[in-house]
């Protein structure tokens, strides 16, 4: 083991209480940052979950649409116009909107209806029933997470939406809404009835292109052909939705703010403990200077101490993060931890710890080696 590593580790572990305080500081900070950024990623994923699962190369949306949940409507007759554009194989209508679900024997609850068709957005992660049964006018698909809210518990349960009978024909798992309002998949015409719009009203047209079609050219042609609409790629619509929910509403700033606060608190705690550790070892550092060590050598000892703290603190924080990940997996807003986030957090931990070493480094840089004669 290198002598610098040995000296740094012994300095670090000598005062157990301070070492534990340092590690708690790092763990607290990193777990807080992870939860905030994990929530951010989870939120980011949830707000685009419908867009991600829709079979579309291009989206025809009302001009000015801010997000997937936007209530603006298109004229369904645009479907025919869109189909006349060369390169368009299909333009499938999709309808969304809020309505009231009658909870058996318990009033009603708002739901978010998604009007589907066999070629359009279908429920996924189906764990009971068959999505093909959604062609039945009364059929609906709901997520099992919302059974309690909806007052149903199994396939075949019935209730009403705005006075119209519905039967649970398919059950999904994990299709959750960040708005906490349950998604209910229903056939297109039935959905129009439930939401209370005309047969000509649809929210989106999902455009599928023929093989080899030039997406940009088709997009331009669609934009020319259709009035009061925008034609977006899936990526563009996804980004627009994310931007609206994360930054238009301030939710993203709140999550980032929390993460930043966590990083600052962690840095201050580590800086404080490193500073006090360095202060306790000033005579040793002065001795090192007296025997001719360069400032860089002493800085290496302090930075090694900081890096050791970073590695140990990150290791403990990572284990806690895994537990949090597991704990929130089935919650309304599960946190998401990706390999890139993990790597980023490790880099952040190292940066925090090394930055924290700055105050200690300034302190040892000012040491007068002659102080060893006075002690």
């Amino acid at each position, binding site marked *: 083991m*290198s*002598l610098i590593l040995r000296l740094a580790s012994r300095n670090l572990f000598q005062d157990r209480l301070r070492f534990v305080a340092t590690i708690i500081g790092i763990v607290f900070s990193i777990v807080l940052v992870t939860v905030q950024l994990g929530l951010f990623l989870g939120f980011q994923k949830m707000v685009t979950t419908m867009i991600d699962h829709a079979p579309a190369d291009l989206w025809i949306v009302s001009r000015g649409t801010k997000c997937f949940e936007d209530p603006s409507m298109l004229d369904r007759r645009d479907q025919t116009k869109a189909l006349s554009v060369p390169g368009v194989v299909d333009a499938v209508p999709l309808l969304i909107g809020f309505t009231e679900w009658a909870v058996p024997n318990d009033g009603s609850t708002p739901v978010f209806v998604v009007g589907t068709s066999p070629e359009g957005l279908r429920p996924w992660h189906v764990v009971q029933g068959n999505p093909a049964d959604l062609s039945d006018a009364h059929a609906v698909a709901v997520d099992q997470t919302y059974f309690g809210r909806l007052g149903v518990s199994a396939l075949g349960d019935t209730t009403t939406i705005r006075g119209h009978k519905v039967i649970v024909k398919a059950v999904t798992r994990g299709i959750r809404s960040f708005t906490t309002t349950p998604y209910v998949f229903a056939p297109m015409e039935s959905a129009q009835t439930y939401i209370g719009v005309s047969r000509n009203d649809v929210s989106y047209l999902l455009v599928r292109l023929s093989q080899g079609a030039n997406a940009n050219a088709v997009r331009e042609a669609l934009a020319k052909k259709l009035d009061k609409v925008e034609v977006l790629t899936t990526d563009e619509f996804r980004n627009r939705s994310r931007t609206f929910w994360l930054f238009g509403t301030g939710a993203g700033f709140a999550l980032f703010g929390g993460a930043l606060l966590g990083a600052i608190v962690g840095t201050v705690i580590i800086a404080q403990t490193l500073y006090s550790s360095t202060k306790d070892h000033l005579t040793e550092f002065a*001795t090192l200077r*007296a*025997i001719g060590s*360069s400032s860089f050598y002493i800085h290496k000892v302090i930075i090694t101490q900081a890096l050791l703290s970073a590695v140990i603190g990150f290791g403990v924080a990572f284990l806690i993060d895994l537990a949090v990940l597991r704990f929130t997996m089935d919650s309304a807003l599960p946190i998401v931890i990706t390999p890139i986030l993990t790597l980023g957090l490790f880099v952040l931990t190292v940066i925090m710890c090394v930055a924290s070493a700055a105050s200690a480094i300034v302190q040892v840089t000012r040491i007068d080696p002659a102080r060893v*004669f006075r002690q």
Partner: protein
Amino acid sequence: MSKPVIEAVDIVKRLGRGAAEVQALRGVSLELAPGELTLLMGPSGSGKTTLLSVLGCMLTPSSGTVRVRGESTANAGHAKLARLRRDHVGFIFQSYHLVPTLSALDNVRLALDVRGRYGKPAIAKALDGLAMVGLSHKKNAFPQDMSGGEQQRVAIARAIVGNPSVILADEPTGALDTENGQAVMTVLANIAKDPAHGVLVVTHDPRVRAFANRIIHIEDGRIVDEERGAAGLVAAAE
């Protein structure tokens, strides 16, 4: 006579500022020769430690010249002073100043590590240093498990292992009983017999006079007397 390892000419050192300013050294000139053990004696506040700091490149003089192996410390910054100490000076302190969390061997290795000497050769050299002060058997002991005399001998090994031109010792026997003090001075006297090293010992302790080649007396920041020590007289007689 061989070239001096350290040469000080008309050194003045002022400490503090304004009303608190003190002239700790008032025109000190001396040379330290290799192969000699020199004692610097004087009452408290006479400037011994300040002179040691200036000669050991920890402080630069307010005026006058210090040359270490011919290299002047004039206008030297922290980095140059550190290099001069690293290349030419070994220190021994009254309070030993061993790193308490490192073993005796690692404390000696530290002096090599700061000189960029690592690995097995450094360990072998550190073991030689411990052997020279008779502490091979204590290589894995930590400072708190050693007597004061043993700790001071480890500090001597740390000072000598980098092969400095001069060893500067500040009251090396100040915290030791007679037996341990004699043992430490014997080691220092043996080091001084090597013409590669000069040794300067700052002391109050009259018992160490017997080990000296030269004795310099300092009072009020001035050298007031210089005499041959017992070892010097023996050497002269030989």
